[in-house]
Each structure stands twice: as structure tokens, then as C-alpha cells.
């Protein structure tokens, strides 16, 4: 459903094309972050919210969610270090 046409892009001067490229790169990076957030929320919602008793997140659940993200990132760093060490041997 994209209406972006090559003709439009080729009408732009070089400075505008560079600006557009930077814009695309920046939005792409943001989109990757959003994708990660979706993944974490899915995972941590399952871990931290066992049943639905109310329409808001309790303080305990909130702590669980933030811990969940932090520990996942720690896990990721741990695994990266371990694998890179074993690759150096």
C-alpha cells in the first residue's frame, strides 16, 4: 500500500536525498527498539501477570516487569560474553 514512488525521490536534490536517508535510518533504528519492546512486553506480561483481577498494573507487578527486562538484558550480556570466550579458545 506504499505510495512512495521512485519518480518522487529522483525529483529531490542531493541534500534532500541525504536528509531523507538519514531520516529513514533514524526511524529504522527506532522501529527496531519498538520491536524489542513488543517482544519484552509479551514475554514479561506472561511471567509477571498470571491472572487478570483488575484493570491496572499493581506495584508488585510493575516491579516484576522492570526486573524482567533488566534480567533479560543481563542474561543476554552474560550469554554474549560466554559464547565469545568459548570462541576465543
Amino acid at each position, binding site marked *: 500500500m506504499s505510495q512512495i514512488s521512485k519518480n518522487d525521490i529522483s525529483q529531490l536534490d542531493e541534500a534532500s536525498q541525504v536528509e531523507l536517508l538519514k531520516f529513514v535510518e533514524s526511524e529504522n533504528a527506532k522501529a527496531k527498539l519498538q520491536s524489542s519492546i513488543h517482544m519484552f512486553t509479551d514475554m514479561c506480561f506472561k511471567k509477571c*501477570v498470571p491472572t*487478570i483481577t483488575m484493570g491496572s*498494573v499493581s506495584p508488585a507487578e510493575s516491579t516484576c516487569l522492570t526486573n524482567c*527486562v533488566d534480567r533479560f538484558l543481563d542474561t543476554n550480556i552474560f550469554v554474549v560474553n560466554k559464547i565469545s570466550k568459548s570462541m576465543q579458545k
Partner: protein
Amino acid sequence: MAFSLFGGSDKKDSGAAPTSGDSSNVNSIKENLQAQILQEIALTNATELISKISNNCYEKCILNPGSSLSTADATCLDQCSEKYIQAWNTISRRYLARVQSESKN
């Protein structure tokens, strides 16, 4: 259109070939392209959120599928959706804070 709820717009390209070098046309082409890109990203985000909420809340709320959604089902889905969005915000804040602090090290 429905996707305007999620930050997009209905703006379409005029379709007329602009004179190259005309700066006001260049700006409007650029702005149009940027708007289209932002719209697609917003739509992707909304689609993902809808998918995740549907899956998670169906699992937690509809334990014995009946012949229609009961009031209890609807209440649960309502609460679950709100909760999920709050969780998304909490995690988003935490993750972005962590990414920023890691990039400073």
C-alpha cells in the same frame, strides 16, 4: 480511515510531476515521503500491539470458549488490554533508559 487513529494521515502524493529545482515542491515531496514513512511505522506498531494483546488476553480471559463473549469475558478483556498497555509503557521506559545508559558507557 482506521489507521488515522494510530498516528497516520490520509495525505496522498499529488501525483503531478514537479519542476525539478523548485524548492517548495522539493520540501512538500520530502515532507510527504516522511509522513508516509511515519504512517507505515505507526501502522506496524499498532498491528503488533493488537496481535499481542489479542493473543495474551484471549489466553488469560477466555478459558472455556462459549457461544458468545459473556459480560465477564468482556470485562476481563477490557482489564487485560488496559493492563497490557500499561505494562508496555513501563517496559518501554525501562528498556529505553537502560539502552541510553549502556550507550554512555
